[in-house]
């Protein structure tokens, strides 16, 4: 009996069979299916299609007239490492590092799974997220996680998924000019290469000194081996080009983040198979490095054949934390500014999963993938659409957020100060 209880407690409530039937299913990995069925067994998708037999024990979700998509993946967040953006103690997305290099920094080790930020995100259909380090020249390593309860290990899909660097702001890199910034990055890459082949000598203290610490150099090895993508935050077309030259020189697997002017070098990015994380709600020439910022950017890049993952890039109310939920608005605006609807959906689901090497786990509705599924009352990008069901790893969540509790409390003024009903 005690054992049975223990097992039951450890099993997520939804670790069972779920059948979502009758909706218009967008697997993203394939064409949409009218009146399709999605079967989830023990947290994983086992079948997607029409005319699929529904297991007798399945919990049925009638999605007739609804839209069914994979859970959304937000590729640029500070979820769990930033509770209050400013003026409330240190946030955990930026490492001190050494001389603006913090390659060894594993940002997810500071992640708080109990952050109040998760529930509002999941409630609006975000089921997976990339947590990014920022600051300095090499900011650290990013990871991709699911929005599920438990520990960081429980949430983790893959770590690291990228090494993050910021190219284009000499000041934050601790140098005086862009060219010098590239020199500094090249020095780090060369030192990593040398370190990689002279580990024994290093450990015997028989090498020259390096530009970075032992742990930073070690963390950079997968980057120079082309196994770990280097996600470079950069805006100016010329700076993107400089990053591409460096990537060619060292055979790096490059990704571009922000990319205000990426559309100006779209053909080159497409030819080099370099994906871009960018948004569709910013057209402000906010600096001399982003004079070409435009809302058509995502659509133009896609048209040129670039893999595009949509992220927030206009700053609306803390888009990397509290407002990661507005990814669907970003997608809707991308459509308004020239991206196809299908591409926009892909850009918030399967494309980020592919870019970060986790498309075998999330981002599409296919057998074997995590049961991360959202049932929408209509077009996922439209404001009037409600999220009707959110499943993460096969479990349905009915999140009551801190904001929901506040609204309940003050819906009738003067409000109440009693505990809300659980």
């Amino acid at each position: 009996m005690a054992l049975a209880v223990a097992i039951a407690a450890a099993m997520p409530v939804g670790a069972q069979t779920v059948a979502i039937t009758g909706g218009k299913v967008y697997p993203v990995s394939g064409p949409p299916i009218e009146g399709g069925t999605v079967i989830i067994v023990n947290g994983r998708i086992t079948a997607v299609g029409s005319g699929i037999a529904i297991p007798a024990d399945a919990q049925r979700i009638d999605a007739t007239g609804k839209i069914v998509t994979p859970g959304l993946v937000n590729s640029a967040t500070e979820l769990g490492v930033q509770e209050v953006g400013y003026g409330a103690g240190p946030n955990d997305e930026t490492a001190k590092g050494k001389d603006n290099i913090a390659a060894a920094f594993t940002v997810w080790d500071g992640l708080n799974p109990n952050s109040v930020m998760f529930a509002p995100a999941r409630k609006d259909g975000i089921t997976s997220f990339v947590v990014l380090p920022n600051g300095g020249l090499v900011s650290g390593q990013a990871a991709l996680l699911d929005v599920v309860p438990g520990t960081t290990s429980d949430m983790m899909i893959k770590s690291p998924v990228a090494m993050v660097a910021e190219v284009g702001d000499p000041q934050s890199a601790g140098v005086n000019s862009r060219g010098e910034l590239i020199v500094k990055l090249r020095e780090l890459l060369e030192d990593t290469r040398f370190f990689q082949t002279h580990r024994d000598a290093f450990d015997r203290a028989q090498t020259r000194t390096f530009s970075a610490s032992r742990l930073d150099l070690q963390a950079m090895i997968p980057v120079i081996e082309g196994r770990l993508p280097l996600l470079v935050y950069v805006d100016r077309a010329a700076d993107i080009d400089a990053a591409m030259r460096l990537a060619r020189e060292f055979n790096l697997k490059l990704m571009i983040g922000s990319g205000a002017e990426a559309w100006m070098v779209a053909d080159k990015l497409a030819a080099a198979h370099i994906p871009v994380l960018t948004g569709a709600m910013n057209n402000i020439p906010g600096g001399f490095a982003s004079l070409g910022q435009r809302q058509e950017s995502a659509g133009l890049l896609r048209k040129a054949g670039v893999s595009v993952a949509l992220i927030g890039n206009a700053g609306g109310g803390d888009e990397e934390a509290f407002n990661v939920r507005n990814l669907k608005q970003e997608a809707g605006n991308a459509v308004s500014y020239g991206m196809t609807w299908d591409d926009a959906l892909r850009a918030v689901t399967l494309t980020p999963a592919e870019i970060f090497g986790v498309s075998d786990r999330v981002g599409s509705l296919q057998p074997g993938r995590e049961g991360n599924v959202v049932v929408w009352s209509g077009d996922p990008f439209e404001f009037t659409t409600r999220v009707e069901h959110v499943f993460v790893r096969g479990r349905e969540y009915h999140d009551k957020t801190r904001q929901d509790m506040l609204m309940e409390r003050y819906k009738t003024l003067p409000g109440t100060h009693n505990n809300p009903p659980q």
Partner: protein
Amino acid sequence: MRALLCLLLAGAIAGCASAHPQTTTTPARDTTEAGVGLGGTSTPNADPFPSTYTPFPSRTTVIRNVNLLTAAGPTIRNGAILLQNGKIVAVGATVNAPADALVIDGTGKYVTPGIVDDHSHLGVYSAPGVEASSDGNEATSPTTPQVWAEHSVWPQDPQFPRNLAGGVTTLQVLPGSANLIGGRSVVLKVVPGRTVQSMKFPGAKYGLKMACGENPKRVYGNKGGPQTRMGNVAGYRAAWIRAQDYRRKWDKWNADHKGDPPTRDLGNETLAEVLRGNILVHNHCYRADEMAQMIDISHEFGYKIRSFHHGVEAYKIADLLAKENIGASIWADWGMFKMEALDAVKGNMALVDHAGARVIVHSDDPSGSQRLNQEAAKAMAAGAEIGLPVSEDQAIKWLTINPAWALGLDDRIGSLEAGKNADVVLWSGDPFSVYSRPEKVWVDGAMLYDRTDPSEQWRTDFELGFVPFNRN
């Protein structure tokens, strides 16, 4: 990441509100406030930087077969609107199209009043955001009522035409929120101009920007204070005490002209005009408890707060705001970027609206300002989710007539009614859809933006050569 920097700049340093001037060059048709609000009898020089705005050339225009969200009544389906001589002449199921009218078929499209953003820093925090153009906070003293936002406005800020393309036709440009009292705001028409005077809304009242909470104490905590919220309040009160004294001396001299006039003081001149009711107070204030204290201060000194800006906790005191007739200039969903934004809820607008207070969708953000329609749509959805639905007819008011009221301009702009200024937006579809965009924008009857015609798209001097493409 970059975004967070923007946010901090907006929320912590740039963000806040104030008000803006008007002029004595009010056209005859705008006589409702002529001579009022200018302080003409009580301030030695009421209007030293008069508006030189003149409407751009316009032609008589009819938009028909179009849905009209009027902000003055129920939606008119498949109706029509006539714009003539800079004014809205007729709105209804049909209108008579003069022979010379440009007739636009609006089938499937929507017409709304021009959007009014009562919280902007365009021109004072211009793009590119370099130090040389950082002109929004006179952060040299916590109380700077002597500064006027218009003296910082760069008419070539490339953010202006982007705002117009977002359907915004009137802006209140405010000083930032570093200071307890940040200075005067200015109300601008979103039109090209060589000078700020040529953008100033004729006859608009000035506003005064005040700020509560974290920003002033953060900026001055190590620069002589205030260091605390109680220090903030002492600072407001001290300033109003000085202003009362100043006003008394001038009012006496204005009445009897005995002896030399009192010495002019620019800061107290502005504050005295607030006390006389000629300048509208726009108060950056996030928290409910602080808003209530600011209301008490306004009672103590006998001035009115026109609108609280960034009131993320407005829903907690919506009844008080309704009773005091104070606007709530708020975001749809920004929150948690600092402690005083902790209790932000998506239902804020719906809750405030249903409590009978005046909701204003504001931006404090050059990007968000271009999509205030989308912000309203998100807030509508949040209302529906908590059982407080908001109709499109109500939500359009949040974007137009309510902010127009906050600027004291609701008799001239903010709704589609005969006699109002012809500030009009033609949308590709329902403005509360994520897929709709402004197609054409008129200011005083002049079409200043046409998405389909690059020759009708305003480019600032700055953009020439620097911005390598044509916006649409």
